[in-house]
C-alpha cells in the first residue's frame, strides 16, 4: 500500500503532532507514504470565496501527486475537501478542466484518481480487523468521543463516506482499538473555526457546546480529524474556559495519536506532549508513562 502524501501547511505549524503521529502510525501499519515535493497551501477556508483560485491551488498539488503515479492521500479534512473539489471539477466539466489547466501553465492536471483521507483508507482499504491484529496496547476502558466536524463528512457528494447523517467510521475505528466510542450528539457539528479571526464569540460558543457534551457524557478524550478543529477545541480551550468561567479540561487527540497509542508507540513519538490540553489523564489511564 503506497500513497503520495500531501501533509498541508499546518503539519509544519500548529498541527505538528498530527504529522508526527501520521508518520509513526503509517510506518507501523506498513502503509508507505511519500510526501509530494514542493506542495503549496490549498488556501484552507479563507480561499473559499474565490472558487477558481481554490481549484487552481489544489490542482497544482494534485498534479504533482499525479506525476508520482501513486494515489494522493492527506490527513487534513480541509486539504481533503479542497483537493476533492478540484478532482470533481475537472471530471465533471471540460470547461472547468480547461480553466484550471490554464492557470497551471506548464503543469497538467488530468484528475485521474480522487484524493483519499487516511481515515477512509484505514476503514475501507486496510481493514479494521487488520488494525486490531496489530494492537499492542489495548485501549480497553478508555471512553472516547468521536468528533467528525464538517468537511470530512459534508458535503456528502465530496466526502463520500459511509453515512452523511450519522457517520460511523471513526466510531468503529475507536472500537477496533479496544476503546469505547461513546454516543456523541455533536459529532458532526461545527467548531466555528472559520470565524475565529473575525467573530471569536461565535466560534467559542460553538466549540464550548462540543466540549461540554464531551464532559457531560464522561469521555476521557475527544478524537478529531481536522487541524482547524484542533485550534478551536485544544489550542483555544483555555480561552473558552476563561470567557465563560468554566472548567473543561478535555484532552483532544488526533485519530492518528489514538491509533499510535494502541500500536504501542511512546507518547513522545506521537507528539502527545505538544497538545495544549494535557493528555496525561489519558496516558495515565492506559498505564503509559
Amino acid at each position, binding site marked *: 500500500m503506497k500513497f503520495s502524501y500531501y501533509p498541508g501547511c499546518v503539519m509544519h505549524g500548529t498541527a505538528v503532532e498530527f504529522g508526527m503521529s501520521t508518520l509513526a502510525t503509517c510506518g507501523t501499519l506498513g502503509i508507505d507514504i511519500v510526501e509530494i515535493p514542493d506542495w503549496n497551501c490549498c488556501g484552507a477556508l479563507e480561499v473559499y470565496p474565490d472558487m477558481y483560485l481554490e481549484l*487552481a491551488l489544489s490542482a497544482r498539488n494534485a498534479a504533482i501527486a499525479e506525476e508520482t503515479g501513486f494515489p494522493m492521500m492527506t490527513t487534513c479534512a480541509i486539504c481533503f475537501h479542497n483537493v476533492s473539489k478540484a478532482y470533481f471539477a475537472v471530471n465533471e466539466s471540460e470547461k472547468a478542466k480547461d480553466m484550471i489547466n490554464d492557470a497551471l501553465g506548464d503543469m497538467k492536471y488530468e484528475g485521474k484518481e480522487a484524493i483519499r483521507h487516511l481515515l477512509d483508507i484505514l476503514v475501507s482499504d486496510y481493514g479494521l480487523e487488520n488494525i486490531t491484529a496489530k494492537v499492542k496496547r489495548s485501549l480497553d476502558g478508555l471512553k472516547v468521543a468521536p468528533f467528525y466536524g464538517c468537511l470530512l463528512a459534508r458535503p456528502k457528494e465530496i466526502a463520500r463516506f459511509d453515512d452523511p447523517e450519522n457517520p460511523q467510521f471513526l466510531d468503529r475505528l475507536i472500537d477496533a482499538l479496544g476503546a469505547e466510542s461513546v454516543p456523541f450528539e455533536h459529532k458532526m457539528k461545527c467548531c466555528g473555526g472559520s470565524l475565529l479571526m473575525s467573530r471569536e464569540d461565535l466560534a467559542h460558543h460553538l466549540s464550548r457546546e462540543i466540549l461540554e457534551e464531551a464532559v457531560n457524557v464522561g469521555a476521557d478524550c475527544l478524537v478529531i480529524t481536522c487541524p482547524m478543529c484542533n485550534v478551536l477545541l485544544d489550542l483555544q480551550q483555555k480561552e473558552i474556559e476563561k470567557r465563560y468561567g468554566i472548567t473543561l479540561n478535555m484532552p483532544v487527540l488526533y485519530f492518528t495519536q489514538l491509533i499510535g497509542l494502541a500500536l504501542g508507540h511512546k507518547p513522545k513519538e506521537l507528539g502527545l506532549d505538544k497538545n495544549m490540553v494535557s493528555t496525561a489523564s489519558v496516558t495515565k489511564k492506559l498505564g503509559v508513562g
Partner: protein
Amino acid sequence: MNTIKAADFDPNFKFEIEKELGGEHLTKCFNCTGCTVGCPITEIEPTYNPRKAMRMAILGMKKELFESEIMWLCVSCYTCYDQCPQDVRITDVLNAMKNIAEREERMGHIKLESAKPAFDKEFVDSIKRHGEVYETGVVIAQIVKHQGIKRLFEYTSTGIFMFKKGKLSLIPKNIKGMKQIKNIFRVVRGEK
C-alpha cells in the same frame, strides 16, 4: 420598521452571482427554510439566516448585503448545503457573493467592514507571497489590526507554549514553484 423600496434593488445581482463559480444554482431557491433549520449560526446569532440571505440576493439587495455582516457570518460548515432539497448549494452561493464583494473591494469600489474578508485577504496574500501560508504572520497581523495589540499580549503564554513545541515558525519560507503560484494568481485574478 424599516421600509425597503423595490425600485432601489439591483435586478441584475442574481445574474451576476449565477455567473460566478459556485453561484450557478441561486435561482433554484424557493425559500423553503430547509437551510435555516440546523444552521449552527442561526441558532446563536439571530441576525444570520441563510434563507434570508438567498432571498435578499434574488431580490437584488446587493447594497444591503454588502454593507452588512450577513454573508460574513457563514461558518462554511456545509450543513445547509446538504439539507437543501433544491440543490442550491447555499455555501457556494454565499461564497460567490463574497467573491463579488471582495473583488469590488480590491478594485477600490467599496469598503467592507467585517474582519472576515480582511482575514481572507491576509491569508490569500500570504500564499501569493510564499506558496505556503505563513500562519504566524497572518494571525498576528489580523489580531493586531482587528482586536488590538492588547489582545495579542493576552496570547503570550499560548504563543510561548506553541513556540517551545515547534508549532510556530518565526520566518516564512517560500516554496520552489513560486513562478507557478504567480501564474495561478495572474490567470485567475489578473494580478502581476
